[in-house]
């Protein structure tokens, strides 16, 4: 199995004032391999989201290195990072982050606009992606016409559309009731079975236990990392 993302000695420090600093990550080493289903668990404020931003190359570490498919990203321009995110990473957020008053299909197509695909290709891939998450019948619905669970499915379809190397989900069930949450988790499990690499951030033990590997984080440091299946 090849290494997809590799973090070594990564720290992240936020400056709040002239001498107030918050260390969100304090020396994290982590490899994510192709085909894995990793849960990152830890209490609120432990640095999960910060870690996810590093994995998703949304942000650069203060010190340490992040490599995507063996390539150090710290020297890259913002333009290049955007291109890499577009190609390699699919994000799923707690708050869904769909564009309001915009159909499910158009929401799903969004990443393809920035990769320069034609309208026809976007439509085909968008429809396919929505069918994968079971929303083939709801393509023209806007977010307000969809339930929370359905909205999160749209977000997952959007993350899937570029066939990314990695899907990152930050508390994807945080805004959902337990039934809808379970459905989202089993959808992620299915996607993993089909070969997608998934990193799931959560603070709930039962949810983390659905993954194949659990990375536990506390105060910005990894305190355990074990495979469970």
């Amino acid at each position, binding site marked *: 199995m090849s290494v997809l993302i590799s973090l070594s000695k990564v720290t992240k420090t936020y400056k709040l004032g002239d001498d107030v600093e918050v260390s969100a990550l304090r020396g994290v080493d982590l490899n994510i391999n192709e085909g894995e289903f990793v849960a990152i668990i830890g209490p609120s404020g432990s640095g999960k989201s910060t870690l996810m931003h590093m994995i998703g190359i949304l*942000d650069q570490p203060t010190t340490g290195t992040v490599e995507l498919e063996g390539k150090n990203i710290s020297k890259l321009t913002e333009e290049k990072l955007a291109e890499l995110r577009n190609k390699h990473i699919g994000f799923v957020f707690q*708050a869904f982050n769909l564009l309001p008053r*915009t159909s499910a299909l158009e929401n799903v197509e969004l990443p393809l606009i920035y990769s320069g695909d034609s309208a026809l290709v976007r439509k085909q891939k968008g429809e396919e992606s929505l069918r994968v998450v079971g929303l083939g019948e709801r393509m023209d619905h806007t977010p307000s016409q969809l339930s929370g669970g359905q909205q999160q499915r749209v977000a997952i379809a959007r993350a899937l559309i570029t066939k990314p190397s990695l899907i990152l989900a930050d508390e994807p069930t945080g805004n959902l009731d337990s039934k809808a949450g379970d459905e989202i988790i089993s959808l992620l499990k299915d996607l993993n079975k089909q070969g997608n690499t998934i990193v799931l951030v959560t603070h709930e033990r039962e949810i983390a236990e659905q993954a194949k590997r659990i990375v536990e984080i506390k105060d910005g440091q990894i305190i355990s990392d074990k495979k469970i299946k």
Partner: protein
Amino acid sequence: MIPIGEIVRLSIQSLLRNKTRSILTMLGIIIGVSAVILLVSIGQGLQNYITQQFESLGSNLVIVLPGKVGGGGGGFGAPNIAGSKLSLGDVDKLSRIGGAVESVGAGIEMPSSVSYLGKTKYTTTAGLTAEYQKMRNLTVSSGRMMSESDNRAGRNVVNIGPGIVDSLFGGANPIGKQITLGGQKFQVVGVLSKIGSGGFGIDVNSFVVLPLTTAQKLFGMKSVQAIGIKAKDKDSIPEVIRQVKKELSKRLKEDDFSVVDSSSLVATINQILGVVTLALGGIAAISLIVGGVGIMNIMLVSVTERTREIGLRKAVGAKPKDILIQFIIESVTLSVVGGGIGVLIGFLGALAINQFISTTVTFWSVALAFGVSAAIGVIFGVAPAASASKLNPIDALKYE
């Protein structure tokens, strides 16, 4: 790089999905552009109207007005009609100059009312010599003009405009009928045709013309209000002006009269109205700038409002440049569409106002207003667009 057509589509889609915000943003530009077009059309209309009035006075005309008029110290004085020291004697003297002076006429004008069989109409009555009628291009469509002998004898005869025929006679033939004017009876001898000039702002249609001496008796005046001198041709105008000044200076003080030729008077008035038009346009242009600041303001607010959207776009692969272009196109679209609507409203408004006072929509005002509004879209759109493109995707996504 994503194709520009795609970003344009994105931007327009985003504007359409936020109709209220878009319309509110455009409002300032709409008001500014339509105000520029409307105000300039009023100024321009006034200018054209006055030029027309002068042109109907006839060409190669030198006019003597009482008091100090125009030029002088850079100001523009109105003729001193009430204190006029010009007299019929001056008219005689001027007509004896000969040479380049072809003919000399004079006139007075007073507001008055005319009545016939209990119907009354308020209008302007002019007393004109036969020569002055000719200079003003007045003609009759029926009956006869007033002659020099009518003038010398001071006969109570009158020419009336077609509008007076309509309102006093119900359109029936008025020739030979007696109308009442200032308590005296006058016989209608002719009906004026619609062409020619009734004087400033006075329509020939509702004009009443008496022989000059008759009018002087009726209004108890010894002076005349204006003397018209027709020059042989355009080139002789300066010479005529010189001779007229010389002749009048023998009897009158320099401040008692002014000699102007119609074309230079038109030029002076046009110059003044041009400044007025420009000032009106300038005032309206300020509202256009205010509209631009409005666009910037709402676009800035919308950057804050749309932080999440921007963060998301960046997370899924939008480059800073893509966001920058999208926001600039949004604000340019708003200002151009707003400018277009403003042009339309300005046009329609000018058309509506044209029912009451004459307006002329000028190409330069439309081009300027539209150009400025488009430029405003770019200039005032850059700051919000730049701040949007610089947003950090993480901060943007966290924004609640």
